[in-house]
């Protein structure tokens, strides 16, 4: 009897270990993760529209007040550039692992020159050349995986906003050409005022890229 009690106790302990192992492995074992499910809706490395009002939406629980475009990315040996023009409406870019875990987001408050520009880097890329970040106005986002999803959401609470949103989506690119370098700063970096243009609500996985310093004041 005592032996059987011991077996039950050992079984429960082993069961708890199995539970934790299964839980950790589960995201990778989901038969059709959101990344694969979206494959039937559009090509790789390209933004395509997701109909939030479909009877069986490709992604559940999307906010019906927004219009959405999705890009499934697969990073090669080079960084990938994401470019989204920003107009009047609330616009946000969110980055996810293939299983749908968010790892970064930014909104139109981070836009420079009317656009959100992001350099998406894979987990195994060598570090960028010194000073490269300062040459670009794009925000560097490091993806924990070489594949993932970029979700572009634009607020469109009124029907008349649909055309403007369609224009934004048409101008968005998930694999854009490298953005041109920013103009060289007119003042030495030591003395320059460093303006951090990352939203304070932005989270992990991103590097803060300083904006070019303003020219020295004329006296």
């Amino acid at each position, binding site marked *: 009897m005592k032996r*059987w009690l011991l077996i039950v106790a050992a079984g429960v302990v*082993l069961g708890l270990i*199995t539970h*934790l192992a299964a839980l950790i492995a*589960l995201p990778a074992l989901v038969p059709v993760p959101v990344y694969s499910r979206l494959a039937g809706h559009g090509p790789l490395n390209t933004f395509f529209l997701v109909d939030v009002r*479909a009877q069986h939406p490709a992604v559940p629980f999307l906010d*019906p007040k927004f219009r959405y475009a999705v890009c499934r990315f697969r990073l090669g040996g080079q960084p990938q550039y994401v470019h989204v023009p920003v107009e009047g409406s609330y616009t*946000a870019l969110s980055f996810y692992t293939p299983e749908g875990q*968010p790892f970064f987001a930014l909104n139109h*408050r981070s836009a420079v020159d009317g656009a959100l520009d992001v350099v998406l880097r894979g987990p195994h890329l060598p570090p960028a050349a010194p000073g490269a970040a300062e040459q670009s106005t794009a925000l560097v986002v490091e993806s924990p995986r070489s594949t993932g999803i970029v979700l572009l959401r634009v607020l469109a609470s009124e029907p008349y906003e649909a055309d403007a949103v369609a224009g934004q989506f048409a101008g968005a690119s998930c694999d854009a050409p490298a953005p041109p370098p920013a103009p060289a700063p007119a003042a030495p970096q030591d003395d320059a005022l460093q303006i951090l243009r990352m939203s304070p609500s932005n989270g992990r996985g991103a590097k803060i890229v300083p904006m070019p310093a303003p020219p020295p004041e004329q006296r």
Partner: protein
Amino acid sequence: MRLIAQALALFAIAAAVGLGLTELAVRDPPGFADVAVGPWVSHPPNEAVGSDPYFDAAVATSGALPLARGDGLAFTAATDDEGRSLDGRCVYRIAGPVPSARVWTLAVHTDDGALFANAARRFAFAGSEVMRDSTGAIDVVTSPHARPGNWLPTGPAPFVVKLRLYDTTISDSAAQLDGTLPAIARVSCP
């Protein structure tokens, strides 16, 4: 022979406990990191990938793309203030304050994440379009039949209400959120 029987029993118990708990956790996530205020529940999306296996497993199996930390906070209510599951055949009143945010929306979804088809093509309200009283509080009614005022159509199925706060600086602590979210009261049920 007896040893084999004991080993089989050990592994059977381990499999039943381990896989059973995993199935339960996916179907009804325990939400250790959840913030609950009345009927509203939020999972503050400020954890690094892999730091909350229960959240990660629930997200992966749901197929959803939840709000990230930089997006804001989402609150979900699947029950009314008295803990009864929301039923689309009933009439509910969602009334009270809404925390400050650059943009907020209030939407109803079926419990599998779709929308209730309706002739008015109305699925949600944004903060900029909902009528409020003099204190800024909202008063929204969900009902399967048309109602005057702020009406969100439902259908004959269980549903959830999502309050999404975009680009918000509010705290995600339950103590500070207490009293800042609208109440959900059942008005009538057939």
